[in-house]
C-alpha cells in the first residue's frame, strides 16, 4: 500500500478511537448491571459441525489474540484495484516435456478431467495431475499437453521473485510427475501485494499469488510482464467453473444478478457459440496485445453491458460480454495451447445473440434452484455439446443449503428469557429491551444449530418458505432500501457465537424492502436513503375481533424478537374492541404487529396486522387485512 494511502486510513481510523470518557461511561453503566456469563474456547469446525465441549468460562484475560491480518491495500483509491488481469506477454513455451508414468501405472484416461482416484490408491495414475482445492472437490487433469503447458508455466514461476514472507496457505495444490520428477505446486488465494514486493509498474498492480514449487515460494503479480498471474490459475482451473453477471435481471434482488459456480454443459455451449462466431465472422478488431486493446477507442460502452460470462473449459479461459445498445460483443480468450490471450470485438448476428441469451437464461435458471447441483456427462451429452467432452463433477457454490450442526454448548446455555415488557405503548431501546417476549430463541434446547438459508433477494413468501423448511420461525420487518420493493434485503436475529446459524425454532427476522424512499426530496437526506425520513408521534388504534378472550400481548419489533419497540398487553380481551400503541413513526414506515397468546403454551408469534404510516396526514393505513382468525384460533 502506498504510504499516503496508509496515512489516510490511519488518520480516519484514529478518529474512531473511542474516548476514555466514553469508555468510562460504559464502565459506569456496566457497574450497575448484572453481567452475563461468557463461555469461551470450545472448538468447532464448520465442516463437520461437531462441537467439542471444552468450555472454559472466560476470565478477563483468558482470551486468545485475534488473528491480525496484514493491512489490505486501500484499493478503493488504487486504479487497478480489482483487476485480475495479466498483460498477455507471458506466452507459454510449450516445451513438451515428456510426461513419465508414476510409480504404479494405471491406464491413461481419455478424459481431460476426472474425479480423482480414491485416496488410498497410492498409484494415483500415470500422466495425471491431481488438483486439490481448498473449497470444493478435487479433480484431475489428464491431458498431457495441458500438463506440459502447466509445467512450463511453473518453470516460468520459478524465474519470478522469491517469496520470503511467511508461509501462505494454499487454495489449490497440484501434484504431478514430469521427466521422472514429482512436483507439488501450491497456489495461494489471490492476495494483496505486500508493499515490499510491489512491482514498479504504471499499471499499479494490487494482487498477487504466492506459488510454492516443491517447497520454494515465489510471488507472481497481476499485470506484470513475465509473471504468469492468470495463466497458471486458468490453466489449472476446473473445467466448467463459471462466473456470470447479468444486469437488469428481473429475478435479481437489485437488478443485478451474478453467480459463480460450476456448469460445464453451459460453458461448453458458450464455447461452441464463441467458436462459431470466430469461425464464421470477421472480427471488427482483434489483438493479442493488451495495451493495444486498452488503447482501442471504439469498444462498446461498458456502461451498457447487459451480461458477461467468464468460464473455464479444459484450462482455457473465455470471457464474453454482450451489450444492450449494440449487437457487438467483446470476447477475450486465453488458450494454453499457444499461451496467448486474444482480445476481439465482433458484430454478432441476431441468431448468435439469441443463442447466447438462451444459454444465459439457462445459467441463471440452473443457478437459481441449485443447492447442490451435479452436472454430469449425460447432461453434457444431452445438450448436444461439441466433441472432446470431458467428465467432471461439479457443484454449485453459489447458494447455501441448510444444514445443522451439533451445539451442545449452545443448547445448554442459559440465555436470558426474562419477562416481557408490558408497558403500554412504551418504547424500549436495545439495551434495555432484552427481556424477550415469547418467540424467544432461548427455549429451544434441541442442541442443533441450523444454518440459516440465504434468503437475500427472494420474495417475502419465498424467504418464509425457506426458513420454515429449514426448521426456523420468522417475523417480517419492512424498511426502505435500495432494492426493489418486496425483495428480501437480508435477515436479522439475536445471536450468539456464529452468525448464520441458529437453534431450531429461532425467530429470524426477514427484512423486506419497501423500495427506495420516494417521498419529497427535501424530506430525506439523499446520502442515506435508509433512514431519517420525516417522522412524528402518532397513536395507532388496532381493532380486535369480537369473541376474543384471554390475555394477549401485542408487540412491534425492531431488528429481532429481542428488541420490542412497542408493546401492549390486553389482560382480558373479552369485550375489548381495540388497543392502541403510541408510536414514533417515519413517513411511509410499515410496521407489523405480532400477537402472543399469554394463555397458550406454545407462545408462538401470530402476525396480526400490518400498518403503514403517512407522515403528512398522520394516519395509519391497514395493509391487507387483520388476521382475526389466527388470533381467535391461537
Amino acid at each position, binding site marked *: 500500500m502506498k504510504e499516503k494511502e496508509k496515512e489516510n486510513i490511519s488518520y*480516519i481510523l484514529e478518529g474512531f478511537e473511542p474516548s476514555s470518557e466514553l469508555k468510562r461511561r460504559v464502565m459506569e453503566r*456496566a457497574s450497575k448491571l448484572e453481567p452475563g456469563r461468557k463461555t469461551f474456547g470450545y472448538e468447532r469446525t464448520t465442516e463437520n459441525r461437531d462441537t467439542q465441549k471444552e468450555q472454559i468460562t472466560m476470565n478477563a484475560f483468558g482470551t486468545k489474540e485475534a488473528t491480525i491480518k496484514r493491512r489490505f491495500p486501500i484499493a478503493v483509491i488504487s486504479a487497478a484495484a480489482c483487476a485480475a488481469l495479466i498483460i498477455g506477454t507471458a506466452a507459454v513455451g510449450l516445451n513438451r516435456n515428456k510426461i513419465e508414468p508414476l510409480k504404479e501405472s494405471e491406464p491413461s484416461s481419455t478424459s481431460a478431467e476426472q474425479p480423482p482416484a480414491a485416496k488410498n490408491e497410492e498409484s494415483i495414475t500415470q500422466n495425471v495431475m491431481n488438483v486439490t482445492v481448498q473449497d470444493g472437490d478435487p479433480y484431475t487433469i489428464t491431458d498431457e499437453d495441458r500438463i506440459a503447458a502447466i509445467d512450463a508455466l511453473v518453470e516460468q514461476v520459478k524465474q519470478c521473485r522469491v517469496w520470503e514472507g511467511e508461509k501462505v496457505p494454499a487454495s489449490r495444490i497440484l501434484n504431478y510427475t514430469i521427466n521422472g520428477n514429482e512436483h507439488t505446486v501450491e497456489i495461494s488465494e489471490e492476495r494483496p501485494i505486500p508493499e515490499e514486493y510491489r512491482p514498479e509498474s504504471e499499471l499499479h498492480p494490487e494482487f498477487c499469488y504466492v506459488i510454492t514449487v516443491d517447497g520454494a515460494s515465489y510471488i507472481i503479480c497481476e499485470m506484470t510482464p513475465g509473471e504468469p498471474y492468470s495463466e497458471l490459475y486458468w490453466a489449472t482451473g476446473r473445467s466448467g467453473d463459471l462466473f456470470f453477471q447479468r444486469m437488469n435481471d428481473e429475478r435479481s434482488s437489485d437488478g443485478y444478478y451474478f453467480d459463480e459456480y460450476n456448469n460445464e454443459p453451459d460453458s461448453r455451449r458458450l464455447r461452441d457459440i464463441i467458436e462459431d462466431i470466430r469461425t464464421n465472422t470477421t472480427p471488427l478488431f482483434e489483438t493479442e496485445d493488451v495495451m493495444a486493446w486498452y488503447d482501442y477507442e471504439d469498444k462498446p460502452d461498458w456502461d451498457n453491458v447487459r451480461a458477461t460470462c467468464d468460464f473455464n473449459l479444459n484450462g482455457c479461459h473465455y470471457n464474453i460480454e454482450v451489450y444492450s445498445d449494440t449487437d457487438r460483443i467483446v470476447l477475450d480468450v486465453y488458450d494454453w495451447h499457444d499461451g496467448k490471450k486474444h482480445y476481439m470485438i465482433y458484430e454478432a448476428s441476431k441468431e448468435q445473440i439469441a443463442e447466447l441469451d438462451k444459454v444465459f437464461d439457462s445459467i441463471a435458471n440452473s443457478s437459481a434452484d441449485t443447492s447442490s447441483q451435479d452436472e454430469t456427462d449425460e447432461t453434457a451429452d444431452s445438450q448436444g455439446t461439441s466433441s472432446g467432452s470431458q467428465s467432471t463433477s461439479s457443484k454449485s457454490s453459489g447458494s447455501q443449503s441448510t444444514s445443522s450442526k451439533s451445539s451442545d454448548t449452545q443448547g445448554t446455555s442459559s440465555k436470558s428469557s426474562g419477562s416481557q415488557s408490558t408497558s403500554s405503548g412504551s418504547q424500549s431501546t436495545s439495551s434495555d429491551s432484552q427481556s424477550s417476549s415469547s418467540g424467544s430463541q432461548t427455549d429451544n434446547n434441541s442442541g442443533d444449530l441450523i444454518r440459516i438459508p440465504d434468503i437475500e433477494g427472494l420474495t417475502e413468501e419465498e424467504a418464509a418458505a425457506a426458513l420454515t423448511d429449514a426448521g426456523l420461525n420468522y417475523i417480517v420487518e419492512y424498511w426502505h432500501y435500495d432494492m426493489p420493493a418486496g425483495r428480501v434485503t437480508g435477515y436479522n436475529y439475536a445471536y450468539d457465537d456464529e452468525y448464520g446459524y441458529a437453534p431450531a425454532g429461532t425467530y429470524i427476522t426477514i427484512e423486506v424492502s419497501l423500495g427506495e424512499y420516494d417521498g419529497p426530496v427535501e424530506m430525506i437526506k439523499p446520502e442515506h436513503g435508509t433512514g431519517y425520513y420525516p417522522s412524528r408521534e402518532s397513536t395507532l388504534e388496532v381493532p380486535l375481533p369480537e369473541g376474543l378472550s384471554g390475555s394477549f400481548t401485542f408487540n412491534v419489533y425492531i431488528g429481532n424478537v429481542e428488541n420490542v419497540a412497542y408493546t401492549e398487553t390486553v389482560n382480558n380481551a373479552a369485550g375489548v374492541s381495540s388497543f392502541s400503541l403510541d408510536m414514533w413513526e417515519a413517513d411511509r414506515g410499515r410496521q407489523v404487529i405480532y400477537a402472543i397468546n399469554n394463555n397458550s403454551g406454545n407462545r408462538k408469534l401470530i402476525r396480526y396486522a400490518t400498518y403503514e404510516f403517512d407522515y403528512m396526514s398522520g394516519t395509519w393505513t391497514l395493509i391487507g387485512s387483520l388476521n382475526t382468525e389466527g388470533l381467535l384460533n391461537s
Partner: protein
Amino acid sequence: MTDEEKDLEYVMDKYGRTVSGIIASMLGSQSEREDIFQEVFLLYYTKDLFFGDEGSRRSWLIRTAINLCRAANRSPWYRLRNGEEFDPNTVQYTESEPTDERLWQAVCRLKEKYRLPLYLHYFEEIPISDIAKVMGLSEGAVKMRLSRARERIKSELENSRNITETEAEAHERKREREYIIHSRRV
C-alpha cells in the same frame, strides 16, 4: 473491579475502534454514535455469550453494532431525542487532512450495502469470509459488493480530483479504469 468488568474493559480496548468505526459508517451524529457504542458494549456485558474463538467474539460485536445501527436508522426516536440534524460526514477526525475527509465522505456516500463491506474489509481488515458470515451473504456477494464499492469510490475520488491534470494523466487514468471494468476471473 470484577473479572467481568475487566473483561469489558479489555474488549472495549481491543474492539472499541472497530465498533466505533462501523457505527460511524452507518450513523450520522456524534451523540448517536456514542449511544450505540455504549449499547453494544453493555449488551456484551449483560448477555450470556458463547464464543468459539476470538474471531467469533469480534463477529458478535460487529453484527450487534450493525443491528443496533440499523434499528437506530429505522427509529426516528433516536434522531428526535437528540434533536440533531443528520450529517453522514461528521467524522470527528483527531488530525485530519483534506484527503482524509474526501475519502471518508466518498465512503459515506456509498449505499449501505457497499459501504459496510468496504469499511470492514479495507479499514478493519476483516477477511471476506468473515464479512460474509457477519452480513449473512455469500463470499461471492461480498466480493461483488467490494468490487462495486471500489469502482464507485474511485469514480467519486476521480471526479473530485484536481482538474488541472495533464492530458497524459487523464489518458492514463482512462486506461486504468478500463482495466478495472474489464477485469474478470474465474
